[in-house]
Structure formats: structure tokens, C-alpha cells
């Protein structure tokens, strides 16, 4: 099961997941093997044989799958912008309580 909130913020409001650079990806699937959260899905018959199926399962601020990637084909959002955004949403949530 994956978390539905991160620091009290609904997970779907936070944009945090890997982005695949298909020009670099060699479909070694090390990232899929590594990620325990089913963020990825393998589609053997499609042209893009690997997709981000469940971006909201990705643990916010985790970039561990990126470190398994030989061709360096995975990138992530900017951390400080994400932190700022989480703080803003928390403020909005507090003021609407």
C-alpha cells in the first residue's frame, strides 16, 4: 500500500515522480526491479516499454531508482520548489479549516 498523504498534504497534490528520458532509456528495467511501490509498469508490446504508471505511489523526495539507472535516464522535480509548494498547501489547508 502507498501513502495517501505526505506531511499531511494529499499525495495527489504533490508533483513528485521520476520522468523517463526515452532517448536515453535502454530498458534494462533496474528501476522497476528496485522500486517497491509499483511506480513503474512494463509494457512489453508497446513502443515505450516502460511507463510511470502510478506517479503518486512515488515517495516524495526519494530518488533512489534514479541511482540504479546506468544510462542516467531518470530525472526528478526540483526539491526546494517541492518543499515550498508543500508548505504553501499546508498553509492553505490550515486557513480553510
Amino acid at each position: 500500500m502507498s501513502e495517501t498523504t505526505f506531511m499531511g498534504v494529499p499525495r495527489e497534490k504533490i508533483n513528485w515522480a521520476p520522468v523517463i528520458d526515452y532517448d536515453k532509456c535502454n530498458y534494462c528495467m533496474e528501476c522497476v526491479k528496485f522500486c517497491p511501490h509499483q511506480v513503474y509498469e512494463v509494457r512489453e508490446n508497446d513502443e515505450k516499454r516502460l511507463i510511470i504508471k502510478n506517479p503518486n505511489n512515488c515517495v516524495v523526495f526519494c530518488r533512489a531508482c534514479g541511482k540504479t539507472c546506468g544510462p542516467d535516464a531518470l530525472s526528478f522535480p526540483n526539491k526546494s520548489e517541492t518543499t515550498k509548494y508543500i508548505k504553501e498547501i499546508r498553509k492553505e489547508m490550515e486557513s480553510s479549516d
Partner: protein
Amino acid sequence: MTKSYAILSCNGLDKLAGSLTREIALQIAEQTGSEIICPTFYRVADARYNKLAAEKPLLVIDGCGTRCAGKLAAEKELKIAAKINIAEESKKHNIEIGSGLRLGENELQLCKLLVDNFFKEELSKEASLEKTDQVSMPAEIDYEIYKKDKFVFRLPKEAAFYFTENDCWVYVVGNKARIGVTDFVQQSLSDIMFFTPPDIGSEIEQFGEAGNIESGKAVFEIICPVSGVITAVNEDLLDYPEYINENPYEKGWIAELQLTDFEGDKELLMQFDEYIEIMKRKVDEFHV
């Protein structure tokens, strides 16, 4: 004279970064009298290298994030004394590695730089390092213990400990702090083989990268719970990264910082009562 190593490089033949690992291994071996381990031969006939690997400190050189050499070292239960990762270094120094298979100008430039840096770091390791850690921790820490099967997860109860949802901790004393990872991280990674410390003097934002720890399973980026400037790192972990497995709150601490905005950082930190519930939920879903 720099010490002599057993060098295990990935030698990846279908990537230029792999060829570069071999070139770097050769240059370091020539200058230090180190001996090279062939990863392919080691896998099929390890008797050839067991003595060498047991007697000399191990230098691992990996071409890319797949870390074939590092994983082979883990498989053979070897302790890694030093490590170079070409893909990381290429990014760090902004020297791009080409897409062909033969070493060109850029690759040779990166090679020279990495070999030079390796020797510089060796010299600075030899120079006696002053201990500059300043955060005094309680002599005895009171832990809550939560178990699943044979796995024990401790969590310190002291109010000066704060936690993040990414399972790192910070212990705050005034405007200084010590950081580390929780038992949940070390149990998930299992045997930690290598610690890459953050640079002393570097400024890190909250949730920025404060070094890495590596096991046979994965590389874990230490997600810094607070913003600040790194003032000390736990140098014992360079020789004994297994301290993190033994106790990540005490002798397995990671680094110390001068805090820059703790009041702002606190907003996204939790204390014991809140984090213990998250940890228990994660542990219940935990599988090795």
C-alpha cells in the same frame, strides 16, 4: 607513498564509462603497486582473488549507476575502502562522456582529473583529521522498540529528536544539530557497505542531499531533515559503515550542521509521538 589496493573495476565493455574504469584502474595500479581484479574471472573463479581481496583494501570503480563492481563486492562480502563512480563524477565535473566505445579527449581529461583527485584525497586522509563534532548527545538514549519477525526497530523518545517522513532524524541543540537515518532505513537497506559523506562547509537545504549510504541492495540518498551548513561528518563511518546498522542514532550518526532556519524547517518535521505511528505502519508493511 599512497597505499596499495586491490582494484575492482566494472570494465563494462559496451559503455565508454566502463572502459574508463579500466583506464583509471591501470593508472592507479601503475602508480601505487595495486593489483587489479578482473570482475568476469572473479565471478567464475574467485579462488584466484580471495587472498588478494582479503589482504588489501578494496578500491571499487563503477562506470554507471548499475554498480556492477559494487554489487559484486557485496556478493563476495568484501569491505569497500574507497570508491569511484564515473557517471557521478562526470556530472559533478561537467565533463560529458561520449556515446562511442573508444576513449577520446573528454574521457582522458576526466580520467586524469579523477586519478589526480584520488591521490589528493588519499593524502588528505593520511593527514590527521581534527574531530570537530560538537553536538553533545545524551549518554543514554531511551528507545521505544517495535518488532517485526526478527527485525527490531528502535526510536529515540527524547524531545530533542525530530523525524521526517523520509525516515531521517535530527537532534537539535541550540543552533546546532546532528543528523542520521532511522532504524527503518538501515533495516531496509540491510548491510551497509559504503558511506559517501556530504562536503564539510557545504550549504544544504531542507530535504537536500546530505551524502549517501550504500548496501548491496541500493544507494540511499540521505535526505537532510534541516537546512544548514555542514560542520562535521562522522569519519568513523568511512572505515566502519556498519556502525549505521549497529546503531544509527549513536555511533552511526551521519553529520552535524549549523542550522540556518530551524523555525521554518520545524513545520515539516515530526516529534516522537507523530513519527512512531508512521514508523509502525511502515514496519507493518515492511518486507525484506
